[in-house]
Structure formats: structure tokens, C-alpha cells
């Protein structure tokens, strides 16, 4: 039995509480009491579904990472804008295999989702044992450079945050 068995996922509880307040769109005492009750009871009742708690080692780094991804989404959307409206004959679509060096399942999920969210790349499949990702790129003239870019820009911070 863990010491804090009455509060198995403190972060999840906090997130649920904030989501509830946002849904209600108000900070009245009534909304806060109900939100606190739900935020405590949902993780406790569904505890059996998530035995592992994802560890976030560095919250500030995570905030920085979120801002980095948001910035990249805006920038890459503008690039995709040009690619889509330009002549399609000039596109260089490619299948890319990207080796990954993450062990935590949650970290792999975050990396795959980040790659899909940033325009120009979609994660198509996760390899067995989480050692590589199959990515489809809309325009990759140099696949090796793209892999190096993705690894350095997203995988490194994710590893620092979750492992």
C-alpha cells in the first residue's frame, strides 16, 4: 500500500480540477467544491487503469517545451501553406524511419504526437519495443537531416523531462 493511497495521482487531480473550472467558466465556491470532489474521486475510482504514474522531472522545462512546440506549429503551418498551394510536382514525400531512444511509454506517445502535430510529418507507426517510429513526411529532400532535426529538437527535451 502506498503512503498516499487516498490521493493516487496528484497531478491528474490538479488537472481535472482546472479542467472542471474551465468547463464551468467560473470560479464560484460551488464550482470549486464540486470540481474538487470530482478531481479527487475520478482518479481514485479509476486507479486500476493507470498503475504507472508518468514522472515529470522538470516542470519548467516542460513549459518551455510546450511553448517551443506551439511556436513550431505556427511556423511549420506557414511552410505547409506554401507547400500545399505550390506545385505538387515539386514535393518530395518520403517514408522515414526514425530510431528513438526513449524507454517510457508515455514519453514515446508524447514524441509521436508532437511529430504528428507539427506540420509536414505524421507518425504512422511505432515499431515493436518502441525503438523506432515510421514517419511520413510531406516534403523531405534530405530524410537524414530531418531525423537529426526531430531528434535534437523534440526527443532530447522529452528525454530530459520524462526520464
Amino acid at each position, binding site marked *: 500500500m502506498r503512503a498516499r493511497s487516498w490521493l493516487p495521482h496528484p497531478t491528474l487531480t490538479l488537472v481535472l480540477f482546472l479542467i472542471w473550472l474551465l468547463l464551468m467558466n467560473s470560479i464560484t465556491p460551488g464550482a470549486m467544491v464540486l470540481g474538487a470532489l470530482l478531481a479527487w474521486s475520478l482518479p481514485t475510482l479509476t486507479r486500476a487503469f493507470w498503475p504507472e504514474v508518468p514522472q515529470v522531472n522538470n516542470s519548467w522545462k516542460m513549459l518551455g517545451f510546450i511553448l517551443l512546440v506551439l511556436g513550431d506549429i505556427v511556423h511549420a*503551418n506557414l511552410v505547409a501553406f506554401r507547400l500545399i498551394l505550390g506545385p505538387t510536382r515539386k514535393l518530395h514525400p518520403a517514408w522515414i*524511419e526514425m530510431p528513438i531512444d526513449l524507454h517510457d511509454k508515455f514519453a514515446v506517445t508524447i514524441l509521436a504526437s508532437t511529430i504528428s502535430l507539427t506540420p509536414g510529418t*505524421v507518425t504512422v507507426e511505432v515499431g515493436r519495443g518502441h525503438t523506432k517510429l515510421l514517419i*511520413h513526411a510531406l516534403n523531405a529532400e534530405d530524410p537524414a537531416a530531418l531525423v537529426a532535426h526531430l531528434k535534437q529538437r523534440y526527443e532530447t527535451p522529452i528525454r530530459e523531462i520524462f526520464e
Partner: protein
Amino acid sequence: MNIVIEAIIAILLLAGAAFALVGSIGLARLPDFFQRLHGPTKATTLGVGCTVLASAFFFSSTQDGLSLHEILIVVFLFITAPVSAHTVARAALHRHVKTTERTQGEPWRH
């Protein structure tokens, strides 16, 4: 309503509409399935993001207090969009959907 806020809202709405439009154009004119997938998955992120931000600005300025529940739409969209794109792409991969000949590299075979 303040003219500056009104201008911000108008710009955000137009930008959101433009991104959504380009995403749809991509869906229509790109040559193969996997390339087409890039259009709509991207348009949702920034197109809806801009529209929702405009909505938050509008209701914050016309009603009492901040209106922030729009943020939830963006959060949930950012969580679900990559998952649905991944699922659709995987299904296509398993069905061996053809890609244009110019595509470099090979997908994994099952």
C-alpha cells in the same frame, strides 16, 4: 467594443479561416492518400486554434469576466488530432494504399 480588440478578433478569425481553407485545399489536391492526410491534420491545429482564440477574446470583451473555456477545445484537439491521424495512417498502411512513385523510402510491410 474597443476597435483594437475588434481588429484582433477579425484578424484571428480570418487567419483561422485561411488555415482551415488551405488544409481543405490540401485534402483535395495533393496526389496520394498519405500526403492528403497532412492537410486536415494541420488545419485543425492552427485553424481551430485561431478561431477559438477569437471566440475567447470576443466573449471576454462583451461579457463580464474572462471566458477561457475555449482553451479546453484546443487542449482536447491537440490530444486527439495526432491520435486520429495516426489511426487513419496505420489503417491505410495495413491496406497497402498506394503512394506516388516519387515517394522516397519504403514503409514497413506487414
